[in-house]
């Protein structure tokens, strides 16, 4: 009895294994196709919705097989992947956050191994920000305005002690993200004559957590940040005015007594894209998205608790007039 049972058990085991393996193989055949177009997902919503719109149009209007792969924002893996063909298209590269990588991979002497496909239509703005309550106070939360006359960087000095922390002593603190981005805070502070010290949070997550904690406590904080960014919707930030950027200013010139240049956010592609996917190439070169359009989709996504794909689909459904011109 026990002998037959154990035989049966073995037969069943073999049967289940065979069944599952067959199923696995069947799945794989459908999934991995040489003709799959790989778009890059990065780690912020504005980028994700823009990529999702491109993906939906490529799939539904042009019949391509499209998949997304993930690479952290403007990082080495992104550029290496675009070089090797692991990735085919990324919608939103902010040049000033990956200057060194762009020099090496896109603008190298004798031609780069990754191609730039013009701008996507988003323009990125960088600056120094404080929460609105620092200037205007917040009666509802019982926060008094601690720097009521703070408008431009030349007003910073009179409020140095307001922004001081135990790390910076008597100087005010400018919260910076990571020294890996070439943001030149010390040079700017010196040029502005501000009695402030730049403190690096080390990573984006850390800096934003610090900003969040300051906001919860109603503490004054001066931070580096850029637009578009989700933090503006959550924390109501006011930008501190800086002298306008001109061609004499860093990085083109040598002066630091200026603000930041506007970032023309660019599309980057794998050089083989035009040959392998000519139609998709034409579509992607026409593809454009403005700050307003991107913000609209992101807002819909966060307010109505949609997935990235749902929010992008709703926008595609409602804006046929906009995208029909992109289809080759």
């Amino acid at each position: 009895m026990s002998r037959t049972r154990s035989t049966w058990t073995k037969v069943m085991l073999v049967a289940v294994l065979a069944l599952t393996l067959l199923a696995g193989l069947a799945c794989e055949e459908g999934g991995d196709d040489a003709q799959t177009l790989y778009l890059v997902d990065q780690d912020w919503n504005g980028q994700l919705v823009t990529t999702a719109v491109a993906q939906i149009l490529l799939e539904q209007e042009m019949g391509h097989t499209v998949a997304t792969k993930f690479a952290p924002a403007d990082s080495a893996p992104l550029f290496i992947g675009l070089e090797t063909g692991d990735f085919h298209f990324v919608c939103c590269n902010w040049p000033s956050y990956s200057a060194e990588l762009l020099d090496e991979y896109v603008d190298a002497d004798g031609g780069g191994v990754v191609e730039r496909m013009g701008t996507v239509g988003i323009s990125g703005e960088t600056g120094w920000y404080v929460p609105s309550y620092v200037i205007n106070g917040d009666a509802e939360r019982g926060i008094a305005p601690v720097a009521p006359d703070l408008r431009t960087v030349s007003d910073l000095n009179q409020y140095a002690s307001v922004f001081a922390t135990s790390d910076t002593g008597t100087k005010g603190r400018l919260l910076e993200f990571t020294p890996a981005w070439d943001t030149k805070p010390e040079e700017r502070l010196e040029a502005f004559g501000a009695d402030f010290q730049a403190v690096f949070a080390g990573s984006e997550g850390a800096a934003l957590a610090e900003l969040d904690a300051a906001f919860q406590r109603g503490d004054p904080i001066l931070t580096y940040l850029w637009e578009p960014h989700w933090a503006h919707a959550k924390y109501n930030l006011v930008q501190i005015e800086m002298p306008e950027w001109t061609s004499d200013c860093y990085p083109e010139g040598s002066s630091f007594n200026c603000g930041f240049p506007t970032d023309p956010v660019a599309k980057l592609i794998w050089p083989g894209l035009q040959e392998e996917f000519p139609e998709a190439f034409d579509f992607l070169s026409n593809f454009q998205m403005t700050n307003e359009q991107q913000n609209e989709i992101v807002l819909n996504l966060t307010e109505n608790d949609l997935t990235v794909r749902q929010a992008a689909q709703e926008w595609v459904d409602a804006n046929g007039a906009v995208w029909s011109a992109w289809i080759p």
Partner: protein
Amino acid sequence: MIRMETSQLRLFRRPRYQWVLWATIVAASYLLAYSLATTNANTDIGNWPQSWELGIQQPIDSSFEWIGDTFAWFFNPISSVIDAVLSGIDAFLLWLPWTFVVAAAFMGGLKLGNRWLGLFCGFAVLFIGLMGFWDSAMVTLSVLGASVVIAVGLGVPIGILAAFNNRFEALVRPILDTMQVLPAFVYLIPALVLFGVSGTQGVFLTVVYCIPPVIRLTNLGIRQVPQAVIETAHSHGSTTFQTLLQVQLPLAKGSIMMGVNQTIMMAVAMVIITALVGVEGLGRDVWLSLREVDAGEGLQSGIAIVLLAIILDRYSYALAQSRPGNSSTGRGAAPGGVAMANRTVGNMTSSYILPFGSMLFLAVLLVLGALVSPLRDFPDALVFSMADPVNRVFDWMAVNLHFITSWIRDTLFRELGYSPIHTFLLWLPWPALMLIAAGLAYLAAGWRVALLAVMGLLFAGIGGVWDLTMDTLSQVLTAGTFTVVVGIVLGVIASQSKAFETALRPILDTMQTMPIFVYLIPVIMLWGIGPLVGIIATSVYALPPVIRLTCLGIRDVPGQVIETAQSHGSTGLQTMIQVKIPLALPAIMLGVNQTTIMVLAMVIIAGLVGGGGLGQEVFINSIWLKMGDGLVAGMAIVFMAMVLDRMTQGRRRTTAPLESFR
């Protein structure tokens, strides 16, 4: 007069007075350091001369480029094979009906352990689905599975070779030490160049980090098979190969499985790092929530990782324990010899097969799942989130606990700890520092380690990372001192109070398995950014081993010894200080040693929260694609880890159990 001096000197040679001497030296240097810090002393005199920095970064960069270009023909095919296998497993796991996976997890636990393990595993898998991480968890599982299979496939043969060849073992050991301490960010870029951006890359990073335990424990297991058993096998006419296959490996199985268990746990620890090279899954979920300061969501994905880790841990642990003949020491199996080993091999395959009824049930689930959609894909309607309430708790803590957390940070850690140590290290002229480091290393662990310490410091100077090394060293010393002091105190309390220990245990378990990245947001919200928050996070992370081992060591002090002490009139406190703690010292030192290694593993994390130092240098250079600079900073961390590891181990290693078998 002279007589008196010599007698005084002799006094100092006695252990007790030696202790006083050391305490005086430590107190004096601390006072000096404290006064230096409070008077803002000029620290420039301690600088390493800049002209002595040799550019060793450039050649490293170019040689990596050369390797990448020259051996592309070799690495590319490996990469595509692993990629294909990965996407196969991935598609398969995602295809499996969720009902099937939950049931299989339950029955696996039932078979390997008892019904509680089964229930736990079933519910844990279900819970991962309920939190909305089904797909992510399956992707993570496929990367983990592939990594562990490769690690074991490579690790066991390497371990066998090491067991048979002492010279090979001597060669492998420092490499394994380096692999465990070198931050993954250092070899992230070279690996990207070799393998491209793909799942292979994630598997490679994971394998490098998780392979050492299986090599070490295979080596140990085979070496511990009693000589008598091997001789019996030989006298029955077995060849060396037959003996290995039929006697040594089966007897070492317990030890090897313990290695596999540790390898699995270390692979889980890499889940988040692999997200940085494009691997999807739970690591990516944690990473995304970090960037959106969504601590609640981060915690949820962290819990999913912890649950996965616990299931894998319990399964592999149960497998390691399941053959009574193969205890991890191998000694229990000695009398049975060859016969026993043979029987074990025969039993091994059949005993893990599930009973007929369960198999049938699983098959039915599989078929049903293939046909009925809600039984196949995890239904979205069931998914819930606890992120919001968790975030509200963290927000409340950030506002209302700030007064106490900022005191801990500014007074306890900065004024009393970090600031004096940091200033002292910077102020000390570099030759003096080298001399002191060498002297301490010599006293603790002998001249080899002293040499290693001097080499490490010279390397830091020549490599141009002297100041960064001092930053990191002072953070490591502050965190280490705090952890050891608090850990021993908590360990002593836990050894005296069963209730306290019971309450502490789940907290310690969670602290060790929860990915560090998950509690970075709450820690920053409480303590802000900067070197201090790195030190605090490190202390939290590194506490468990020293608490556990202190508690264990004191519990294990023989009852008679304590009774003798009490019968001589010792009070409870006296017994503790003069009898129990000294007797528990070996266990406590083991805890201190493990804690030291964990502190050093956190150096890279400190760089991500504004701690600066070597960790930040490694991280930045991984973004800038500068392998040379990253590797130099990484090796400075490795040197620091090796020296501190050997120093806290003392001279124990020279009498390691392995030696007795040679």
